């Protein structure tokens, strides 16, 4: 593998890492209520 | 607080857009501009050709015609050598199109004589009866050359005063034909693709009258536009009294005569149907 491929592979893993982090954070128990709150609040706004 | 969060969101969204943008839109400039892809014989447009190209854009011909031949048999057999990156370096904008309501035009240059294009542009149905291409007879009005020099300068194309003078007194149609005749001719693909006919040529349908109806159908669909429905000629010569050996006629039709405007039909008709139309040309006089 040349340097460029290693580099690209690294970036790919990095991006994937970010994705996993977003999923974990969104679905963490801490975020459970907060994450779903907007869908209830939007029902009684107008 | 709420403001800051929104700003963070906007920045995050922009960064997310930029990843794919950089990889698939910015970086490819480097690959496409690779000097290895340059083709030395590719020339910029002359003033007349450029004006023709601008009319092509104005009329939206790209809504029906593409200008890229893909490396697929159905494309290369029908239109010619597949398109190369280096052939488009002077195309601002590119005119590849996205829809083939009409045939691809990337290699149209040299396929037909100028006279064919003139008649066809003015009235496509007179050449190809069931075509749905609009009539462009109005293009016969004089070409507006007031911006020509400025256009050449803007694009940085080389030109001489003689080139500019050559646009004077021309019609828009002349410019269009000049443009069409340039398309795809910067690489010498026609010579390379020239069909080599090897071995002895013998007509498998010699004196076989049963193929006459089919031969006539092939003639009407492919040849009548130039040689006339009655064979008396038009863009091409009269074939009424053609009296050459079958093998010669076959070679003319199959391989074409590029210099004088007789297209090659080998790839579209194949051998068998070419022989049938040859048989039609020869036998019809006697029947």
């Amino acid at each position: 593998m040349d340097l460029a491929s290693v580099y690209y592979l690294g970036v790919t893993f990095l991006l994937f890492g970010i994705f996993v982090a977003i999923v974990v954070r969104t679905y963490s128990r801490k975020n459970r209520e907060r994450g779903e709150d907007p869908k209830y609040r939007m029902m009684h706004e107008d | 607080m709420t403001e800051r969060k929104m700003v963070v969101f906007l920045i995050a969204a922009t960064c997310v857009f930029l990843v794919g943008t950089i990889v698939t839109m910015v970086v490819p400039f480097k690959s496409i501009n690779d000097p290895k892809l340059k083709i030395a014989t590719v020339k910029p447009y002359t003033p007349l050709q450029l004006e023709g190209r601008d009319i092509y854009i104005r009329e939206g011909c790209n809504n029906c015609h593409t200008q890229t031949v893909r490396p697929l048999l159905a494309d290369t057999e029908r239109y010619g050598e597949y398109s190369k990156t280096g052939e488009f370096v002077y195309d601002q904008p590119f005119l590849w199109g996205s829809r083939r309501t009409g045939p691809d035009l990337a290699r149209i240059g040299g396929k037909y004589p100028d006279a064919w294009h003139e008649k066809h542009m003015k009235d496509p149905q007179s050449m190809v009866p069931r075509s749905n291409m609009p009539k462009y007879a109005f293009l016969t009005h004089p070409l507006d050359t007031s911006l020509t020099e400025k256009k050449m300068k803007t694009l940085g194309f080389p030109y001489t005063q003689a080139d500019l003078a050559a646009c004077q007194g021309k019609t828009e149609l002349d410019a269009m034909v000049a443009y069409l005749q340039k398309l795809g001719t910067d690489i010498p693909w026609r010579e390379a693709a020239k069909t080599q006919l090897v071995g002895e040529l013998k007509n498998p349908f010699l004196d076989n009258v049963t193929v006459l109806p089919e031969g006539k159908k092939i003639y009407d669909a492919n040849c009548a536009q130039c040689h006339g429905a009655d064979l008396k000629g038009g863009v091409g010569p009269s074939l009424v009294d053609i009296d050459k050996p079958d093998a010669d006629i076959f070679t003319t039709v199959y391989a074409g005569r590029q210099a004088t405007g007789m297209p090659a039909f080998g790839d579209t008709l194949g051998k068998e149907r070419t022989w049938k139309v040859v048989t039609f040309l020869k036998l019809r006089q006697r029947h």
Partner: protein
Amino acid sequence: MDQQQGYADDVVKGFILWSMVWGLVTVLIGVLISLQLVYPQLNLPPFLTYGRLRPVHTNAGIFGWGIGSFMAFFFYITQRLTKTRLWSPGLARVQLWLFNVIIALAAVTLLAGMNRSKEYAELEWPVALLVVVLWVIFSVNIIMTIAKRKEEQMYISLWYILATLVGVAVLYLVNNVSIPVSLFKSYSAYAGANDANVQWWYGHNAVAMVLTTPPLALFYYYLPKSTGVPIYSHRMGVIAFWSLIFMYLWTGAHHLLWTPVPDWVQTLAMGFSVMLIAPSWASVFNGYFSMEGQWNQMRDNYLVKFLIFAITFYGLQTLQGPSQAVRTFSAFIHYTDWVPGHVHMGTLGWVSLVIFAGIYYTIPKLYGREIYSVGLANLHFWLAVTGQIIFSITMWVAGVQQASMLHASNPDGSLHYSFMETLIELYPYWTWRSIAGIIYLASLLVFLYNIVKTISAGKAQPAEQKA
């Protein structure tokens, strides 16, 4: 706050009504160009030829009908989701005028042949500059409203709205860079394969940022509002959101398969297109799961019918799209009628059905009246869906038939059919497409009548239901 008085809604009405006008223009021209393909004598040179009319059709559709109504809904939705009055109603008025001036100018300049030729970025540079001004005015207004919001968290629709504002800005600016020669003529700043690649990075993301994210913003808002039940999962919406806007930007080159742009760009586009199924279908499932226990509303509530059919067409669209992005299949159907079949399932099925639902929901609220006739709304629905399905199916069949003929070869390797032999087979299908278009046109007229009657003669809404 007295919300009925508090929100700036006049401009919402204005945008809705004008977008309906441009929608009618789109469909009328659509029918005309579809007929021109069958009867070339309907071309009236120089101004009314197919080559000049087709860009008017696409621009009126995407920008007049699409963007016009999205501007209305973004104003409407944003105010309600933020519980905040629009930052500047005055600016929004200016925007409405500017919008209509631009669309009219677009139609006139395109018919006059002033055309940059790049699809969906045809407008010459002076008009394109006006578009930039328009977008800045619009974005500032929405962004400032969201910045001053009284709801701390942003509902998913607002995410899609913000993404649209940023996305369109980036795309439009880059792809429109040109070198002017005169007031009416410019050349693209990029050449050849570079220009092609920039164009389709733009072109596909116009599909993303105009025909996908705004209707999704609407869908996520109007589905819960119509059913009275919250969306199934807000968090799934969030994950789908980030994945969608990330992946879309990689896929432009699926419009350029087998062309001279570098192979690796094409391959990436192919891969990401297939991956796009996941975030697209996340929204589809979010819609379907929200209907749990509510499916009876498909029968009883015409708004739900529009929305669920819309998201279903979106689901089909996002399965068909990725298949077209695969090299082998592209080799077959690219450049054929298959693609207009795909396009119009998206525009007529997905985008327009969502907009219809939005208008049916919003107009009665804004005017304090009930919809004039639910029966007519149902008739509109069935005519529209029938027209669209006939349109798409005939085009898919036509595309496959022409493709098979173009690729057929004789035993000696020569081609079996000339181009013209394949073209004449298409005429019957194109006739059917025109019929489909006329059915769709009829549906649109029913719709317009219903809306106009609602505004002029609808029953006043009972006080307690008043929004």
